[in-house]
């Protein structure tokens, strides 16, 4: 389990700001995310972001899960399960 949770709220942002902001945040915390010390939780009210963000970060080698909350979606980006054994 990651010790640190980084929150990113991109509700109300227009396309393609959602994906750009999420990717920027992923790259900024790349080291923490990759070695499992942090997970990034993106809050969005944009339906298409549940397609674009997961597809992009999975291609970058992260694990992703999406939960529907009240009126928005929560996309959690973290270290891949296979990578966790290396620690």
């Amino acid at each position, binding site marked *: 389990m990651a010790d640190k949770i980084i929150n990113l709220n991109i509700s109300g942002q227009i*396309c393609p*700001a959602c994906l750009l902001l999420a990717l920027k945040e992923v790259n900024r915390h790349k080291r923490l995310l990759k070695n499992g010390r942090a997970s990034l939780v993106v809050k969005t009210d944009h*339906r298409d972001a*549940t397609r674009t963000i*997961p*597809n*992009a970060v999975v291609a970058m080698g992260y694990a992703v899960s999406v939960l*529907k909350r009240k009126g928005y979606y929560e996309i959690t980006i973290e270290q891949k399960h296979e990578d966790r054994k290396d620690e």
Partner: protein
Amino acid sequence: MPEHADFAYTACLNLIIGIVLGIIFHRSDFCMAGMFRDVFLFRQTFFVRILCLQVTITMTLFFLARESGLINFYPPPNLTRASLGTLIGGSVFGAGMVLAGGCVIGTLYKMGAGSVTGIIAFTGLILGSGIYAELYPVWTRSLEKAIASKAVLLPQLVHSDSLVPVVLLVALLQIFRWIRRGMLFQKAHAEGYLHPWKAAVFIAFLNLALYAGSGMPLAVSTGYAKLAAYLEKSAFPVHYETLAFFKKESFAFVDPDTGGIVAGGPGAKIDHIFSTEVALMLGVVAGSFASALFLKEFRIRNLPPPVQGLSALFGGILLAIGSRMAGGCNIKFLMSGLPLLSIQAVVFLLGMLPGVMAGNYLLKNWVIRIED
């Protein structure tokens, strides 16, 4: 004035199809602005493949419908010859689409689901239609001598009936290749998500229903001009009367069933544009609203950052001006025109691409500045 029974039938058909379209667009987030923007911005071509699928299915359906006598008008009255205006209008439209964060239908379904940016872009579209009405005399005069294509559709230009089947065959082969490689499918996690390939198939069938039922395939943008006309007529009635744009008819054709003349234009009156485009627009907003409500996702969203709001307004204005310059929008040209191999559609697309690139440039450097 259209005959009442016929008018009511067309309006109901368009309203119902509009509602279904609104649900489809909302569920699949079928954003045509994003489709073209992301090709240049992220090198993502997934949604363009979906559009190719849609165009191919529509082309098949229109071809079969024409062969079986299901459609009365070929070409449809709302497609005309291409000109320089189509190209320039396409570019303005392409830039507007990116800045507004949605096209003429994207704006409607996003607004229906509660997007404030959608509402701002919608306002821009109405405003832009009004601005175009002022520019109309100058614009048409400067284009008087511009060259126009000899025919409306490519098959007419080359005098060949085999062009559509040949293009169709090539397109179908490509679609099968993509299906085999799984390139028409992408996972999404939104509740009630409708996969874009399914949306593409549904939209193609609904477009055929519109073409067969109201004489014209799917189109939207003149509806905005008509809404602008009603607003202008009520706010500035004297000035409204001086505007030539609101007096013109976009098309007129003879109804084969009744023998009466059916016409439509941007002016503030009940005509065929009202019963088709305005009814459809209303339907899309209502359908998207219902879909969002049903999924418990409807709420008036947060205000976008001010620069993004301004961009949506400016983009909406460009969308309206561009579509009026070109004589149509992306929906009419790409979803309805391309499947008929309309020259206007091809020219519009050629103009739209550099427009999208210009819009992307402005978006990246002014609207969403992301520094690392």
